[in-house]
């Protein structure tokens, strides 16, 4: 099963959802991703990823209130589930363990 691993983009999306707190819906997530990662986030891609994450049980969603913008259509808000949070924390821990093992000099950016 692929479920236990987080893809790089999946992780970014999860982080954004967590960062946006109660305001995490697809368009906002796209904008946020673009702003902080500097790469273009296509709605199609983000939508597919959100859908997959929900299927894996890392996210859950509910429809919000109808508003006048968006042609009167409701937004779907995403929140992290407990497995979602665990997955994020675990992946961060894995990274930090790896970071700590790197000797400081090998990452110096100066020449030579």
């Amino acid at each position, binding site marked *: 099963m692929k479920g236990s691993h987080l893809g790089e983009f999946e992780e970014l999306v999860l982080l954004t959802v967590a960062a946006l707190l109660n305001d995490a*819906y*697809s*368009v906002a997530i796209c904008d946020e991703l673009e702003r902080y990662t500097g790469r273009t986030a296509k*709605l*199609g891609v983000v*939508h*597919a990823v959100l*859908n*997959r994450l929900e299927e894996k049980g890392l996210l859950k969603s509910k*429809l919000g209130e109808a508003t*006048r*913008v*968006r*042609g009167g*259509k*409701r*937004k*779907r808000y995403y929140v992290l589930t407990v497995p979602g949070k665990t997955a994020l924390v675990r992946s961060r821990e894995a990274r930090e363990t790896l970071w700590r093992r790197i000797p400081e000099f090998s990452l110096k950016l100066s020449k030579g």
Partner: protein
Amino acid sequence: MENPNPIQPPRWAQRFLRWYCRPELAEDLEGDLHEYFERNLARRGPKTARLIYILDVIKFMRSYTIRKPKLAMFNFTILHNHYKTSARTIYRNKLFSGINVVGLAISMSVGLLLIAFLAELKSYDQFHHDYDRIYRVINMHQRLEEDPSPYASTSILAARKIREQATGIEAQAVLRAYWDKDVKVGDKTMPLEGILADEGFFTVFTWNVLAGNPATALKDLNSLVLTAKSAEKLFGTTDVVGKQVVVDTANFTVTAVIETPPLQSHLRFDMVGSFVTLDNRQLARKDRNWMKWDQMWQNYIYLKLQPGTGAAALEPVFARISEEGNQSLENERITIHLQPLREVVLGPDMSNQIGPNFDERLTWILGGLSVIVILSACFNYTNLSIARALRRTREVGVRKAIGATRSQVMSQFLLESVLISLVALLLSLGLFIFLRPGFISLDRIFNDLVTLKPSGSTYLYFTLLAIFVGLVAGILPALFFSKLNSANILKDPSRVKLFGHLGFRKALIVFQYTLSLGLIVAVSIGYRQYSYSLAFNLGFRTENIYNVELQQNKSEVVMQALAKVPGVVDVSRSMYVPCTGMSWTGNIRYKNPVDSATLYYNYVDSSYLRIHHIELLAGTTFKPGPKTSVRDAGVIINQKALHFMGLQDPHDAVGEEIRIDGEAVTVIGVVRDFHHNTLQNPINNFAFRYYTPDLPARWGGVVNLKVNTDNPQLLVNDLESAWKQIDTVHPFKGMFYEEKIQKAYDQLAGMMKIIGFLALLAISIASLGLLGMVVFTTETRLKEISIRKVMGASEINLVVLMSRGFMMLLGVACVLAIPVTYWLFDRVFFSGITYRAPVGLMDLFGGTLVVFGLALLAVGSQTLRVARVNPATTLRNE
């Protein structure tokens, strides 16, 4: 935002999204797209925003968004059950099924004819490789301010200019039509129909070469390509490459033999001569006209474009070539264009066609009429099914009560109608085979055009037509039955609102009868015009004149030979036979050099006017006698031409000099106006010019014999044997003048036959439908009738009571049909005909009476049958 932005995403894209997307995902996805749409709207304008929206909607079609299709329709147990009930219902109601099957079959046979006809026309020329890349160059010819008219032919100059200037052309073929010659091998002579073509003939088109080298076959002077058929005819074998033949007087070498082209080739020939033969001769003669831009009457250019080159890519070059060419013309404009090969046979109407051609507008008319006839039969089905609904509501009620969905009920009724329609297809195939020979012989052009032998794919179209007809016929009953509420039906079936559809059903009957009556009136008016045209006083005598075509023989020889035949009283000659659809034109000028007009003319000899009883108002006819040139003999004009000259008194014109095509000639006589063309056209400026033996034989020519005989058949036989003495090569071609005129109106007659046939079908279908309705109504009113009878109503009273409603409907149809048809003929179909037959009351109402009679018979017989039933037998059962 108080005022919502009026610019919205495309509605169809929104609907499409909702249709394919899973419902649980649809709403927020639509909202998201809408949000992006509004952003794009603000940033990049409405056009781009809408485009992006559409693209996004398409891009979101992914495995996780698309809803899973329901497979309920393919439940085979239910399907089997539907099939069984349908078959049983059809079988149980033999009368109604019979009416439906026969009606649909009759109407579909028209559809089958049309499909087979169109499929065959579409299959023309498809045997050429790269059929899609082959085009013909056509000319639009415009004289002064007249509307431009299309010609299939082009000038040789255009061929040369296209070769020099245009790019993207893989191959070019130049053809010249009507190269019909007598071909001699040893002492055997045979008339063959031929064309001239250059080497491109083998690179543009695909011919199956049996012998010889196609690359060089048409390269050299006096080369000849034979079809297998004509090689067999001439030599008895196809192994003839290198042999010599004599074409007219010139020696030709056979350079190749090709397989005889199939019927489905618009190019038809027995032989192909090398174009360079003619080209060289004309250039050697220094023919000034040969390379002129307006010499566009006999040559044809075909192009094969390179792959990836569209016809549009050549238009700018063509426009430039046309512009160059038109600089040499004064009062004309000629532009060249491309026409795809697939439109050559079934395409727009054009002058100077080579090979068979069918005007696509006619197919629309025929197609429209067939669709209406088929719809009319579908209405019968719809009408009868809904009328009989009462008997089936219980069945539907039970089905629904035990869980049938609406779509299942619908599919059941659709299946039933498709089943009926497929049964009808079998019957209509039989009808199709029966009607086929009649249809082909309807008009000479069909005979030449099609065999109507359906191919495999045509049968597929037939089946599709049947299924489609079934669906159209069944859709309304299916909707009606599927809407029924089971609880209501089962509680009290009589409360089902059946007669809510009464108005609709009445409208259907009115429609059918309006159509039938309209067609009948159309046939009467058309037939009246036809017989009027034949009996029309043309201003000269056509009785007892027998015309014989010269077929390139010397006119004196033929006249001498035929004049000796007993029964021939007098003899003259002319270039063609007037009033039969043919004409020769030039232009006439009088004193004013700028004022010119179209002049129709014919070459005749001195006895022509006498034989045809054309009245001379002034001057003389041509002097019989020794050879004079056309010019020296002078010209005889009609009154119209006299008026063109600005003169009133015919005597003033005699001795005046006019110019015909720039050549000065003296008027020697004036004749009273007479008709020289078919009645579509008015009498125009007309002139007789002198027929001298020096006129080129290939122009044609006719010998007119004044005959006096009791036994025409014997006379024709005698003439034919006299002909055989002087010409052993060409078969005798002669015809009485009146027959020839009749032939000129063949197309009108053919069209009337087709409409008449459709009228017959429409009437039978309408009568069948009416019969069905009457049977149904009388049966449901059986008890009412019986009670009325017990109360003392007479049989006549009852018949009147029951048939009154139907007759009213027919009356409405009558009131609608007659004025509309009359108007259509008066203002649309016959508006181009100058001499029209007055339409009488009999023409308008004669056919109507017949239809009424038939309807009365159907209604009367059924109502009388019911009225005669002994009331006791019906009422006892209660």
